[in-house]
C-alpha cells in the first residue's frame, strides 16, 4: 500500500485541562480528497491546527509521507508544501485583492506567476483586483483565501470550514474549484460541518465526534450512516 501523504496515529491534544482530541486516527492518501466531517465542537479545527504545526499534540504522532513531523513548526511545514486555509479566511481587509496576492510572492514565487495562478482559478478576482479585500463579499473573500493558498504551490491543502457563512451556490462553486485543484495532483483534507457538498467531491470521508474519528469510508457509505453517527449512534 502506498505511503499516505498524511497519517495521524492516536493524536491527542488539549486546551489546558480540556482534552479536545482523544486519539484521532486518519489517513489522507496522496492525491485524494478526504472530507473530515462532524458537528461543531468535535475537534476538527483543532486537528487541523495540530497537523499544521500550530498546536502541539499531547500524544500520538503525525506522519507526512512516512516521516514523523513531531515538533515541526508551521513555517517549516508550509515550506515543504503544507498549506492551510483557516476558518474565517484571514485575508488582509485593508489591502486590495492584488496586494493580498502579491504578498504570496514573498514565499518565493514571482508575483506575475502568483497573479496568473490566482486569476486562472478565480477570474472574478481579476475583476476585483483593485478592490479592498475587506469590502468584498464573504464568497469573494473565501476565493481570495483559497487563491492565496494555491499560489504557494501546495502538495497538501488543509481547508477549514470553507462553506462557513456562505450562500449554497457560492459553496458549490468553491468546491468545484477544490475538485479542480485535486485533479492537478494536490492532496486535500477538507474539514466541514455541512457534509453534503464536501462529500460530493471527496474520495474518502471520516466523521469525527467527541474528539475521535468514529467512522471512515467511501462518501456513499458515510452519507448513509451520517445521521446515525452525528447523533451519537456510532459513538
Amino acid at each position: 500500500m502506498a505511503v499516505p501523504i498524511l497519517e495521524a496515529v492516536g493524536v491527542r491534544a488539549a486546551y489546558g485541562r480540556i482534552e479536545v482530541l482523544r486519539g484521532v486516527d486518519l489517513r489522507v492518501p496522496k492525491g485524494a480528497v478526504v472530507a473530515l466531517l462532524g458537528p461543531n465542537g468535535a475537534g476538527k479545527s483543532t486537528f487541523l491546527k495540530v497537523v499544521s504545526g500550530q498546536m502541539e499534540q499531547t500524544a500520538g504522532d503525525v506522519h507526512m509521507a512516512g516521516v514523523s513531523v513531531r515538533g515541526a513548526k508551521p513555517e517549516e511545514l508550509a515550506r515543504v508544501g503544507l498549506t492551510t486555509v483557516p476558518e474565517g479566511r484571514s485575508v488582509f481587509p485593508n489591502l486590495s485583492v492584488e496586494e493580498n496576492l502579491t504578498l504570496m510572492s514573498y514565499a518565493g514565487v514571482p508575483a506575475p506567476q502568483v497573479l496568473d495562478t490566482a486569476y486562472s482559478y478565480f477570474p472574478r478576482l481579476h475583476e476585483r483586483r483593485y478592490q479592498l479585500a475587506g469590502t468584498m463579499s464573504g464568497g469573494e473573500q473565501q476565493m481570495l483565501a483559497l487563491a492565496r493558498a494555491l499560489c504557494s504551490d501546495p502538495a497538501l491543502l488543509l481547508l477549514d470550514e470553507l462553506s462557513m457563512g456562505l450562500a449554497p451556490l457560492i459553496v458549490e462553486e468553491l468546491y468545484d474549484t477544490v475538485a479542480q485543484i485535486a485533479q492537478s495532483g494536490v492532496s486535500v483534507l477538507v474539514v466541514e460541518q455541512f457534509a453534503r457538498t464536501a462529500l460530493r467531491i471527496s474520495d474518502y470521508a471520516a466523521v469525527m465526534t467527541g474528539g475521535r474519528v468514529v467512522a471512515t469510508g467511501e462518501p456513499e457509505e458515510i452519507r448513509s450512516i451520517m445521521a446515525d453517527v452525528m447523533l451519537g449512534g456510532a459513538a
Partner: protein
Amino acid sequence: MLALPVLATSPSFADDAGTPAQAYGGFTTSATATPLRVELYEPAIPIPADPQLELNFSFTHVEGASGPASKARVSAMWPGSPVGEGLKTFVTQLGLPEQLAANGYPVQANAQSPGDPSTASQEFFPGMVGRASADDTGAVARTGYGLSGKVAGDDDSGDDDSDSAASSNAAGAGGLLDALKGGDLSALGSLLSGGSQSHADTSADSGNPLGALGLLVDPGGMSSSSRTSYTADSVTSVATSQLGVVRLLGGIVQLDGVTVTSKSTSSLGGATTKPKVSFGGLTIAGTAFKFTSDGIEAAGSTTAIPGLSDSPLKALEQLGISIDLTQPAKEVDGETASSSIAGPTVTIDTQPVLKLLSLDKLPLADLINKLPDSAGQAKGLLLAALEAHPKIVLKLGQVSSSAQTIAPVTFDDGGTTPAPSTSPTPAPDTSTGTGGTGTGDTGDLGSGAPDATAADQPAPVTADITPTSAVPGLPPLGSVPGMLVLGAVALAAGVGWWLRNGIAAVFGGGASCPHGLPSGLPDLRKV
C-alpha cells in the same frame, strides 16, 4: 515580511500645517471601558478561558490599526470574547436550539471601517442606547444608563443629597454593621438570601443588574466611552468609565461619582499613558471621608479609617469578601504605551457565603432534573454548578488603553539602507539657541524636509562613504585576523550543521517516532 505592506498602506494624511511632522509608518491602538465588570473563576466550567465567565456592563471597545482600519463595539452586557464571539458554539454544545444564536450575540452594536456599517446604534432597553462609529480618522463607542434614570454627573450626586443618601444608607445598613461588629455573620447571610432586611428589598427593586449580588455592589448609574483617533503624527486612545453613586456591602461603603480614565498617546517622539481614578466622595458607615495624596482623610487627620473598627472587615474576610483598590498597570516603552486601571475591586470567595445562603436546603437539584432530556448537557452543567463554589470578582470602572506607532522604513537614493528609527549619533554640542523642538531628537526619520539649521549639521552619511576594510571593528579581509574571523565563522557553521543533522543520528533521533518512522521534514512536493 508583513511590515512592508502595512507601511505601504499607512494613512496618508495631509500635512496642512506645513510643519515637518514626523509621520509614522504604522500604528495600532485600542481602548476598552466597562464601568462594572463581573468575573467568575470556576475551573469546573468547561470554558477554555480565564476567567471562565465574565460580564461587562455598559461595555465599549475601539481599536485601530494601519490602513487605517477602525472598529468599534458597544454592548449593554458583553460576556467576553469567548462567549460573545462564539455564542453559537456554546449554544450548540449545551444542546440548546441553534436559533438562539443564529445571528450571534444579540446585545451589541458594531461599526467598522473599511466595511459596513460605519455607524451603528442599538437601544438595548428603554433609556439605554449604545452608539458606535468608525472612519478613517478613528473610532468611537459610547453607552450609558441609569438604573433609576440617573447617570453619573446627575444633580442628585451633589454633596447635600449624597450626604443625606449616605446617612439613610448607613441607617439602612446599621443593623448589618452592628451585627458584623458583634461577629454575627448570619446577618449578612440572611441579607444576601433576601431576608427581612429592608434595604435588600430596596436594592432589588432598583433593578440592579447583579440581582442578589446587588447588596454587595450597587452601582447607581453607569456610562462608558472608548475613543481612538489618528492624526498625521500621533495616535490617541481614551477609555472612560463613570459610575454614579456606588454602594458596597449594603451601603456600609459608598463612593460618589467614580470616574476612571486611561489615556494613551503615541507618536514618533515617544509615547505617554495616564491612568486615573477619581471619586467624588467616600462615606463609610455614615462618616464622610475624602481622598488625598496621603490616603483617606477624615476630620482633618489622616487615619486608618476612624470610626470603623477592624471587626467588620475581619468578619467580611471570614465571609470570603474583600475590597481592594487596585494599582494601575502602566507600561511605556519607546513609542508604545499602555495602561489599565480599575476602581475598587470586590472579591468574593463564595464558599463561605454559599454556606450562609443555605442553598442546600433548596430543592434546586429536583428542579434541574425536571428539565427535558434534550437539554442534557445543560442539565449536567447546572447540576455541576450546584457543587461549584466560584470566586467572583467585581471590578468597578475597568478601563484600558494602548497606543503604538512605528517609524516608516525609508530608503536613500541608493535604495538599500533603512533609516534609523531614532537618533543613535550623539548630538553636536551646539548652542545655537534656535529654540527648536526641545526634544533632543536629532534623527531625521526621512521626512526629507531640510531643517533651517541644516548647514550646521554634519554632512549626510552617503556623502562620506568609508571603505569597508577601514570600518572600525572589522579586520582587513586578507589579514591574519581576517582569516581567523572567516575560519571561526566556517567552524561555527560546521558545528551548527552537525548539531542540526548529525546529533539526531548519534543519539537515535532519526528513529524517535514510536512507530518506527524517521523524524524530519519531507518535501511533500517530491513524494
